């Protein structure tokens, strides 16, 4: 089945599912897959830190990288995935032309991600990060394959 993940959301699924997300700009797209149990998920998080709006983070943790990423891992594990087997790939975190330099949201999303992964002892298998492009991600949960277009 094909699922579309909107900004500030995530979807987990299993073999047979394809997860798609569009318009990844400064947002982080994180794809995690356990090749043994063939379950995985995709997070499309918009902002780096939940402390900027704890109330919003309470109702929707997927808006923020620091609350969304642990939730993604947990939900995959709840479906039978194992954290130590996860193959994790990142996309997005771009820096659109004309964006105010002060904010650098894409860069901050990426650096918060790297800190959380370090704490969880997880390495990125690959990344397609930065630049000015808006990206679309197709994530095939039968194979774990990730296709990124922009």
């Amino acid at each position, binding site marked *: 089945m094909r699922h579309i993940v909107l900004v500030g959301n995530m979807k987990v699924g299993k073999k047979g599912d394809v997860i798609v997300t569009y318009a990844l700009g400064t947002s982080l797209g994180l794809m995690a897959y356990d090749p043994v149990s063939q379950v995985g998920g995709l997070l499309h998080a918009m902002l780096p830190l939940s402390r900027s709006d704890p109330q919003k983070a309470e109702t929707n943790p997927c808006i923020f990288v620091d609350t969304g990423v642990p939730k993604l891992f947990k939900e995959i594990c709840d479906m039978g995935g194992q954290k130590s087997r996860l*193959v994790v*790939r990142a996309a997005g975190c771009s820096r659109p032309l004309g964006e105010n330099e002060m904010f650098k949201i894409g860069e901050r999303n990426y650096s918060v991600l790297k800190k959380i992964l*370090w704490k969880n*002892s*997880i*390495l990125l298998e690959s*990344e*397609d990060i930065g630049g000015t492009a808006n990206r679309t991600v197709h994530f095939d949960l039968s194979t774990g394959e990730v296709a990124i277009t922009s």
Partner: protein
Amino acid sequence: MSINVLIVDDSGVMRAMILKSLRMSGLPLGETHQAANGQEGLDVLNQHWVDLVIVDINMPVMNGEEMIDRMRESPEIKDIPIVVISTEGSKTRLEKLQQKGAAFIHKPFSPETIRDTIRDIMNLGGDDEGAD
């Protein structure tokens, strides 16, 4: 095959971060040894079988560059692959290290860079066709 690694850095925090990166990397890690300067590093190399040396440059007693020179002069250990991890920015110094056959990683490093550099110099390849 498992890789025995020697980590040489005068900072214990840095050695711990490098070790954690190695454990996260999925590389086949064997024994790990640590040393706080080049002299201690050479002592370890004389006592243990080591397949890979990860070494800092700026250290007291004996710096990393001198340790590498001593290694290259010593037939039993001259062919051990070396990765230098340092804040060193001088281009001439980096070129000198490359001529000595060492790979270079800049501090602060990402754990992915350590994994990819070691895969590369030890010809381990990836366990996965990366999307990049």
